[in-house]
């Protein structure tokens, strides 16, 4: 096992992908706890489709993909919050609306320019090879910022997640921290989707939180457990994908499913 990891890490692109992947998995797991509990699970999915559209446009006009996708997806996150708060269109409908629109625009742009080639498939299902040196540096920097902000704002994120009304009533701006959570999620989604793919990135956000909630009984325990589950699943998934030559994103998700089932089973046994 150690030998295998050593062999994997001896490839530069592989070690780069694993470093970025571990950091992004951590970000996704931490934010995921808040998103799942706030009933915003689908926001990751919606934003990843916007990310797909943005990447397609970036490829068409030949700019650095992350530099374009990050601001566009952040803007979409703002828009989603705005729409779901205006209450004319409900949150889930707003997400479906924006994600399918972005997907349609992305597909149109792609077919007008390069056509459906491997790049598109990589966007959809992820590829560790798509990560350039510059992307990796940017990803590492951004995910460190996301992690730092999450840790620093932890008491406030808990309060706003647990009981928004109480937080607002006692003078904490719930809106501000909801926005922070949405922006951090947007950044995480864009960073993760290169590797996991637009269709699979949301699993990185949802699975670790749901898995931990099978067993853990406090917020802190869920957060810590999610972080560990997420990183372990990512590394195991990447190893599987390397050994069995599977797509990286799908392998990570499969490992996550298995761990989720194991945790559910233990949870069910414990409760009886």
């Amino acid at each position, binding site marked *: 096992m150690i030998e295998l990891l050593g062999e994997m890490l001896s490839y530069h692109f592989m070690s780069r992908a694993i470093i970025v992947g571990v950091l992004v998995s951590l970000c996704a797991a931490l934010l995921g706890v808040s998103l799942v*509990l706030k009933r915003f699970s689908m926001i990751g999915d919606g934003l990843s489709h916007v990310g797909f559209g943005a990447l397609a446009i970036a490829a068409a006009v030949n700019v650095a993909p992350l530099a374009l996708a990050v601001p566009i997806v952040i803007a979409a996150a703002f828009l989603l919050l705005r729409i779901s708060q205006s209450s004319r269109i409900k949150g889930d409908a707003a997400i479906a609306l924006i994600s399918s629109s972005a997907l349609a625009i992305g597909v149109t742009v792609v077919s007008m320019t390069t056509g459906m080639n491997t790049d598109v498939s990589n966007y959809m299902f992820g590829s560790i090879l798509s990560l350039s040196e510059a992307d990796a540096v940017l990803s590492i920097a951004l995910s460190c910022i996301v992690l730092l902000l999450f840790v*620093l*704002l*932890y*008491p*406030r994120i*808990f*309060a706003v997640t*647990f*009981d928004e*009304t*109480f*937080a*607002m*009533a*006692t*003078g*904490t701006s719930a809106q501000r921290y909801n926005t922070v959570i949405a922006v951090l999620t947007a950044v995480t989604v864009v960073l993760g989707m290169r590797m996991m793919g637009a269709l699979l990135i949301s699993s990185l956000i949802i699975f670790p939180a749901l898995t931990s*909630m099978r067993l*853990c*009984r*406090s*917020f*802190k*325990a*869920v957060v810590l457990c999610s972080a560990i589950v997420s990183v372990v699943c990512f590394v195991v998934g990447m190893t599987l994908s390397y050994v069995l030559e599977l797509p990286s994103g799908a392998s990570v998700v499969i490992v996550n499913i298995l761990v989720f089932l194991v945790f559910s089973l233990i949870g069910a046994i414990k409760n009886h």
Partner: protein
Amino acid sequence: MAQITCKNLSFAYDGQTVLSDISFSIDAGAYLCIVGENGSGKSTLMKGLLGLKSPASGTIELGDGLKHTEIGYLPQQTQIQRDFPASVYEVVLSGRLNSMGGRLFYNTEDKKAAMENMERLGIEDIKDKCYMELSGGQQQRVLLARAMCATKKLLLLDEPVTGLDPVATNEMYNLIKLINLCDNTSVIMISHDIHEAVRYATHILHLGNRQLFFGTTAQYRESDLARRFVGGGRA
């Protein structure tokens, strides 16, 4: 000076007035019950007092050195999610958030205050339990402890005994009265139960989309309104 003074308050949703002509004030240490039928504007008024909804007209003035971040609030239970993994301690501690100012993390003083309030309400031995696995009465105590962490001055309670059994209901009322008397913490409570309201409160505000009555409990007992709502009793 009065702790809260409301003058000619009115509230509206989408231009439709739901509550008008509210004028009252309470001093530190008062125990005010807001009563009235469903849809009479009780919750709307509470949202206004909490600063969650701005009045269509009129003013709410905080006096006596009371700041907006010094108000404790016990929401109606239904607003909190069913499957939330949070320990009792985490929930109670989160009440200290408003006194943190620019600080990022809870300090020793915050943790001490959380422990003290849990001890006062007799929930310190369940501090590591999951909030969702508690009984209704215990859950309300946890939320009351959180509200006490947020304030020494004014507690706003939105139907704190809804869904509790008679024993837990009684305990809850007694605890609230005790906090009111011992700490001189003012209490503003929305109540469905007019009999209990009259038993514990010092003041009554009776709403029916406008202010039907405001005054001391003794005055309220004498009013025609009370006779109709509380029922004949001694009459």
